[in-house]
């Protein structure tokens, strides 16, 4: 990077910010001086319209267009359901769907269970704060970063050389041959899933830990006096009280899992039969120049996400009302 480049970039950002501020300032300046009559309408328009226009041209219109594109071929001619037929009959597309199903089952399940167990174990223990930070930290970093971190764990060296990937080193320590993990089906998909579990467990843990702290102490103590053991208390007191939190965690992670893209892209690029819907959508639309198929996959993604989001929102609302 030369200094000129850097200056150009800084100027660009400053110009962008200044233009934005100038337009906004002008608009607000003039609405305060608008004629008394109709001032309310003008003010409303000034406050609301910028966001509404952006959303309309950037989300509403594209969503409709994509829906139409899903029923067309490369050059946009209407071909009915062919793209969907492709998706549900071609082997490579079917593998994508199968992988997505595996992801959606495993990631929410494992991250919620591990996150919950961890939250219970560390609850009120010494150093709870540090324990939390350690598991929560992956949530701050990018999926690309997480992908690289785990790719290093899975790295392969031929048996006669020293391993540099931790997983293969474990195999060697136990007298096994090292494995080309990311190229070996079907274990490679599971190893990619581990990465998302690694990230989402922190989310589950923080939300559930907050829920656990909301369980009334009196109830727990009463159960203790009744001579119950820790597991019974967890089953009969804690678990019912954190049901709402559990639902939110599972649905939220499910949505995130359906949309997973970066991990697959960074670690295998979707090769070796590891592709998922969101990755295949990108590949078809922007690499294979098959906008129809890409759009159809996007539509499927939408249809899969839709009921979960609605349910998620409803539960969150109920929780808010309880509060």
């Amino acid at each position, binding site marked *: 990077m030369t200094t000129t480049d850097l200056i150009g970039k800084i100027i*660009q*950002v400053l110009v962008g910010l200044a233009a934005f501020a100038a337009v906004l300032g002008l608009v607000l300046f003039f609405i305060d001086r608008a004629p008394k009559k109709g001032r309310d309408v003008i003010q409303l328009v000034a406050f609301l319209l910028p966001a509404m226009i952006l*959303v309309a*041209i950037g989300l509403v219109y594209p969503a409709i267009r994509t829906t139409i594109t899903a029923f067309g071929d490369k050059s946009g001619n209407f071909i009915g359901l062919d793209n969907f037929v492709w998706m549900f009959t071609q082997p490579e597309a079917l593998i994508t769907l199968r992988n997505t199903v595996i992801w959606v089952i495993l990631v929410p399940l494992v991250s919620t269970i591990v996150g919950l167990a961890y939250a219970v*174990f560390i609850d009120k223990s010494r150093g709870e704060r540090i324990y939390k930070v350690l*598991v929560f930290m992956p949530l701050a970093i990018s999926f690309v970063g997480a992908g690289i971190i785990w790719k*290093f764990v899975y790295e392969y060296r031929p048996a006669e050389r020293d391993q540099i990937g931790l997983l293969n080193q474990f195999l060697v320590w136990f007298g096994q041959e090292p494995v080309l993990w990311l190229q070996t089906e079907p274990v490679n998909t599971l190893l990619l899933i581990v990465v998302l579990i690694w990230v989402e467990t922190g989310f589950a843990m923080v939300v559930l830990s907050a829920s656990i702290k909301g369980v009334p102490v009196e109830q727990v103590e009463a159960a*203790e006096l009744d001579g119950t053991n820790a597991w019974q208390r967890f089953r009969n007191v804690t678990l019912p009280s954190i049901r709402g939190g559990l639902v939110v965690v599972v649905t939220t992670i499910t949505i995130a899992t359906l949309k997973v893209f970066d991990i697959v892209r960074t670690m295998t*690029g979707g090769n070796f039969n590891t592709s998922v819907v*969101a990755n295949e959508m990108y590949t078809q639309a922007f690499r294979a120049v098959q906008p129809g198929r890409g759009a159809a996959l996007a539509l499927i993604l939408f249809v899969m996400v839709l009921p979960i989001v609605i349910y998620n929102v409803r539960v969150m609302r109920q929780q808010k009302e309880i509060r």
Partner: protein
Amino acid sequence: MSDNVVDLPLPGAAKPRDTTFEVAAADLTKAGRVKRRLTSRTATIASLVIAVIWTIPTFGLLLSSFRPEELIRTTGWWTIFQNPGFTLDNYRDVLFSSSSSAPQLGSYFVNSLAISIPATIFPLVLASMAAYAFAWIKFKWSGALFVFIFALQIVPIQMALIPLLQMFTTALQPMQDQIHAVIPIIPEDTYLQVWVAHTIFALPLAIFLLHNFISDIPSEVIEAAKVDGASHSQLFFQIVLPLALPAIASFAIFQFLWVWNDLLVALVFSGGTADVAPLTQRLAELSGNRGQDWQRLTAGAFVSLVVPLIVFFSLQRYFVRGLLAGSTKG
């Protein structure tokens, strides 16, 4: 400042207290002692094991990024005591080396910042204005329109990518070319497309969350100011914005990290050159093409992680709130 934290709608928390990490102090209560005594040894061991498993991959990468190339390629980082070595060359190489084969991450780091900062400010300003209008300006269809905006969160980004790219190519590209003609120091590929895309994708969630907060401002405050003759823009800047600042801060952190960590929007809209592309895109590319250059990948990954981690550790409270509130985005 840290005590008047916002109430963004927080999933899962049965009570608004104690969402974050400062629990340790409260532990010396009676209930805490009772419970701690009962926390079994197995639980402690299990949590230790989980914590270690969760930390080791990152730790290994961090450690490796400071090892000389030769050692990274031939020995595991866990043999650091048998094969000691420490160097900053990897970082020097990925950040500043100008050889054509080097990752040149310095450039991309600047891009990440140049994308993230405006892409956080733009949607926040527009969204808080819209949220203000929804909350405090009465108009027909206000409720229905708000529900519609809220519902737009359901649309996955993937649904919007193809048409939006087509529109940008026809509408924004000529504009960029013109800007380049007038100010030659600004390249033809600018951040404009990425900014606009991120702004659009952030709006529904931002409007929804900020509306929740802005509509909670007591109406007496707003009415009193109106009686004093304040205009809507005065109200907005002098009363609503300062009061909503904690909520805005939470969302700002979430949005900043979301943009910083994003790969998909960058891939589609940045064009992939060193003029525009962010770190994530460059790293994904390196991981694909030069997957064996671990001395570069390890150091490069940490260059991209350092900003989120700083935000994470310095603004933890806001970070948790913002992250939880926006966790379904994308």
